[in-house]
């Protein structure tokens, strides 16, 4: 048996439902541009009908849950790809910079300075008596030494810059970890009472992606909506409501890492000793940066040292066989360098020769001012296959360094572009599922608005029905 009271009540609740709907629509519209936001919708439920016998009359609707539209698997995939993107980005940024140091397409670089050096000995051989030729040899030799030092220093500078970036990244990792721990708390509070913490979860998903872009993480979700986040293999940076701390600090040389470069240390709480987790970092920006710093750049520095060492050693070897203008046996042309490591930093022209170019020993016999045989042998070193099992010349060796670097830079760049495209695609798919469409929201708004108007009409009708009944008596 239907009742006018019930009709009025249904109308009232329907009006409230429409308001809930419109409020959700407005929430969606307001968050249209919020990064990581998933559109929400109100799930309306029909109320239990009441009735006697066969006649069961509907009792209107009530709002069920407000849920977010999201695809968990897609989110995980995005997080994965984002970690890879972070790695490529970390690499690509610095590879580009490293490449510039060796870029001789436009500027003069080590290859040319070495060419100049050998040419200066050829010029010297044309007229070994000339003082200006001797000065030329001295100058070009000085330039080669300086350029070795320049390349080495620029590589070192980039390494320190990377250390600085590690520090900055680690700080933001700590900040994100702390925020995730906070959100864990909110989500647990909301969801214990059976609700859906849509916005908090959106935010947390976003933070996890950001975190994953910086460092490789593993995420585990507990039953109460709390998550734990492990960075690398062992660094538990978020555990429930607690967050651990990462730090970047300079440490001694280890593995491929050089002395003074930064290690990433993890401290779970203030009572524990910090533990180095650098080796566990394989992905994310941090992984990319560390890879370039410890592998790529150190590799280049080692090769450069080898070249500088070999170059100065072979020139010295020949030069010592010569005679200078004072008819003395030749000195070491470059200051002798003991070990290969650090050779590119240590290489410089013998100070005695710098002070007096007459000590350049280009003659193979004494008292022969016109003799330039030793100078010619030095010039000939340029095209002598003396490196890499006597297979390549010094120029080949250097060009090999540049070629290798060019290939890996190109590879890194295309990996980065590819990864960015993949991620774009995935984000598009995500938006198509979770993104807000204004058209859609406009339609919904009209829908709810009309429902609201109709519900008001229902109340008005019920009221008129009451009036009709009351008017029966008079």
């Amino acid at each position, binding site marked *: 048996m239907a009742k006018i009271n019930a009709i009025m009540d249904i109308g009232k609740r329907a009006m409230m439902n429409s308001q809930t709907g419109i409020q959700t629509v407005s929430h969606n519209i307001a968050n*249209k541009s919020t990064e990581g936001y998933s559109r929400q919708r109100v799930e309306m439920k029909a109320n239990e009908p009441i009735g006697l016998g066969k006649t069961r009359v509907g009792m209107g609707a009530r709002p069920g849950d407000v849920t977010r539209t999201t695809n968990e698997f897609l989110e995980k995939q995005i997080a994965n790809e984002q970690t890879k993107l972070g790695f490529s980005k970390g690499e690509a940024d610095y590879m580009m910079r490293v490449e510039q140091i060796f*870029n001789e397409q436009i500027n003069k670089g080590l290859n040319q300075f070495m060419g100049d050096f050998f040419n200066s000995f050829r010029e010297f051989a044309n007229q070994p008596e000339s003082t200006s030729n001797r000065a030329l040899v001295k100058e070009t030799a000085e330039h080669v030494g300086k350029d070795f030092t320049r390349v080495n220093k620029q590589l070192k500078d980039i390494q320190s810059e990377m250390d600085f970036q590690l520090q900055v990244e680690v700080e933001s990792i700590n900040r994100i970890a702390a925020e995730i721990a906070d959100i864990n708390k909110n989500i647990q509070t909301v969801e214990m009472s059976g609700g859906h913490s849509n916005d908090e979860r959106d935010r947390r998903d976003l933070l996890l992606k950001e975190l994953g872009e910086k460092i490789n993480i593993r995420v585990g979700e507990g039953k109460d909506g709390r998550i734990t986040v492990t960075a690398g293999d062992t660094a538990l940076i978020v555990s429930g409501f607690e967050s651990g701390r990462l730090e970047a600090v300079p440490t001694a040389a280890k593995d491929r890492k050089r002395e003074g470069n930064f290690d990433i240390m993890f401290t779970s709480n203030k009572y524990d000793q910090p533990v180095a987790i650098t080796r566990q970092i394989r992905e994310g920006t941090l992984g990319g940066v560390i890879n370039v710093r410890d592998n790529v750049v150190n590799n280049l520095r080692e090769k450069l040292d080898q070249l500088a060492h070999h170059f100065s050693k072979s020139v010295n070897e020949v030069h010592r066989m010569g005679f200078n203008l004072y008819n003395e046996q030749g000195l070491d042309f470059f200051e002798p360098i003991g070990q290969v490591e650090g050779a590119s930093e240590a290489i410089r022209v013998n100070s005695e020769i710098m002070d007096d170019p007459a000590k350049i020993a280009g003659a193979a016999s004494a008292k022969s001012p016109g003799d330039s045989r030793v100078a010619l042998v030095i010039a000939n070193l340029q095209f002598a296959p003396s490196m890499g099992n006597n297979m390549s010349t010094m120029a080949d060796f250097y060009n*090999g360094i540049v070629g290798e670097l060019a290939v890996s830079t190109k590879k890194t760049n295309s990996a980065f572009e590819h990864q960015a495209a993949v991620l774009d695609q995935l984000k598009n798919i995500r938006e198509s599922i979770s993104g*807000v469409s204004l058209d859609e929201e406009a339609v919904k708004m009209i829908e709810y608005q009309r429902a609201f108007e109709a519900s008001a009409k229902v109340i008005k009708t019920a009221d008129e029905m009451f009036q009709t009944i009351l008017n029966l008596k008079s």
Partner: protein
Amino acid sequence: MRVADKMNYGQSLKNINQSRSEMAASQNQLATMKRVTKPSDDPVAATRTLGARTELHAMDQFMRNIQGAQSFVQLTDQSLGEATDLMVRLKELAIQEANEASANETTRKAVATEAKQIYEELLTIANRQFGDRYLFGGYKTKSKPVNEVGAYQGDEGELRVEIGKNTTLAMNIPASRVFFGSVLNSNRGDSKALDPRVVEDLYDPARIDKPAQVPKQFGEDENIQIRGPAAIDAAEAKQIADDGKKIVQGENVFNSLKTFIVGLETNETSVIQDSITRLDDSMNQIITARSQVGARARMLDNAMASLQKQTVDSKGMISELEDADVFKVASDITQHESALKATLDTSGHLVRLSLLDFLR
């Protein structure tokens, strides 16, 4: 597919960015005229150009070396030409004075004066300088190769210049060979120390030049035949033992001239007659030396020509590898430009379209 607003915006932005970055890349190519501005643009091309530049750089130097050597060789050739002319004159004089009919003590005295003059001139030629280097002194380029009594002070050193990768050429001929009969074609054994290419070649002690073996210094072991037929056979005198080996010696130009002068001054016909042969030998020796110099000049010219060709080839290769194809880049830019316009156009429309506009 459901299309959310953010997709529209994101995609528009991405497309515009992409078009713009392609534009920028093409524009950069056009501005620098280079296709490869950093090694990673094309690693293969970059390493190949780097290698080619090294070669090109060296070739530039080889060409400079050749230019320097050409002047040196030219001056040498000129000097030997002058010397030849002098020898021709000497021979004329010798033939004229060797004959009792037309010559007598007075004419011989007069000719002796002229011969002495020629001797001085030859000395000047032997001591000629190129810049401040003596042409004929071997490695001893800073001191006079021949002193006033006609003794050689220089050595057998060859002034070598690099005229190509791993190729050197001696640009000088020491006076010992031109004027003192040291063996012209000899490379003085096969010691690599004379033209060392690698450091090991320098370990040979022969690199430290022995004093030039200058034969027959005047008045030392030379028999000046002033009386009657030669006591020693002239041909035999030209062979002296050196380390058990017989080395064929040439003629000592200054000595032959001195002999001639002595013959004139002493009015000794047989000596004058003898010196005709010796002067003839001397002249031939100088001519032979000159022809060697000519051969070197030709080698230098050839080397120069081939270097010039190689330079053009290398430059062509580098350009092929790294230079931008201007026509292609220009058409690319036009293409990118229309793409960008289209993107901007559609994006503008797409982003503006909304249901809300139709709900009034």
